[in-house]
């Protein structure tokens, strides 16, 4: 029993254990929910629902939200679950810590919060825009689509890393 608790408290599991776990989880989502794991659609629905609350029902008439209906669904609950699961994991392993600027960023670019947030927000906007344009993110394409051997998902996963590696190298090696 003690070892079980020690395992749950351990802040770092082997990437292979985590990968196999996510693979098993995919079996269950396909079998029990007829869904593949994917995160970014929920962000799009939330953005649409917030805009609809502010600007009224005409927002739901936008072509994108007609093709991708607004509302709380399986994928939306999945993201709430990710938050709770990650929070419980961090709490029991004692890794929870409020932080504005990651230490690796601070060493390279200084501790100015606004600089970090400006880059993070521009990055986030690109991610949200690109995930909808490309129809998926690192979960939907990078894990769920690739495991089904979809050509489009392998292409997208390659592009995620080409873009990401390029920007990371530019920021940390050249600037």
């Amino acid at each position, binding site marked *: 029993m003690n070892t079980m608790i020690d395992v749950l408290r351990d802040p770092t599991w082997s990437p292979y254990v985590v990968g196999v776990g996510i693979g098993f989880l995919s079996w269950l989502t396909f079998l029990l929910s007829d869904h593949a794991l994917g995160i970014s659609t929920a962000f799009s629905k939330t953005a649409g629902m917030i805009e609809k609350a502010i600007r009224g029902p005409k927002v739901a008439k936008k072509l*994108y939200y007609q093709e991708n209906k607004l509302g709380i669904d399986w994928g939306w*609950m999945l993201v709430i679950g990710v938050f709770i699961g990650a929070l419980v994991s961090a709490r029991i392993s004692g890794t929870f810590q409020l932080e504005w600027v990651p230490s690796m960023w601070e060493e390279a670019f200084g501790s100015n919060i606004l600089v970090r947030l400006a880059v993070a927000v521009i990055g986030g906007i690109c*991610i*949200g825009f690109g995930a909808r344009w490309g129809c998926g993110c690192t979960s939907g394409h990078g894990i769920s689509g690739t495991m089904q051997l979809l050509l489009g998902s392998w292409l997208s996963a390659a592009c995620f890393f080409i873009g990401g590696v390029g920007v990371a190298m530019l920021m940390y090696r050249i600037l």
Partner: protein
Amino acid sequence: MLTNLHNNKRLQLLLGLLFGFCFGFLLQKGRVCDYETIMGQLLLQDFTVLKVMLTAIVTGMVGVYAMRGKGWVKLHKQAGSLGTNIPGSLIFGIGFGMLGYCPGTSVGAFAHGALDALVGGIIGIMIGAGLYAAVYPKLKERILKIGDFGDKTLIDVLPVRNPWSVIFSVAAVIVLILIVLEKMGL
């Protein structure tokens, strides 16, 4: 199979929450919600992210295709095109490098207290997704259809009779990559 379960909307919302809990728990334990781990991967120094993803792909692929062979599950295929996957995913990648988190790991990072993941990740991604909905009609007409290749899989385009020869080959290549990464001490 299990159509009654799939049609039970309330139970499905609960299952979504439960599966999300497991996903978030695993991502956090794998340290892939840490800025340092993700940037370490993008700087090609720390291959934790790739190890998690490739292991998940092999495990998931074998199980999903086995269950599909038995008629227990159907695939969730998405049509693709050069005009969809390449520009969209490159823009995503650029954002990924700037933010240091992806959508799922933004949520996971905020859960361990990373406030840049809340402001840049969760809020920024929603702004970006909202902007996309605004420009979608124009992109749909002009760019998204370019180079349409449908929902083809690697099995569809290779001249093989048995899909398992493709599945086992992909698994073998991935396992080989993982072994090489370990041998190189990455």
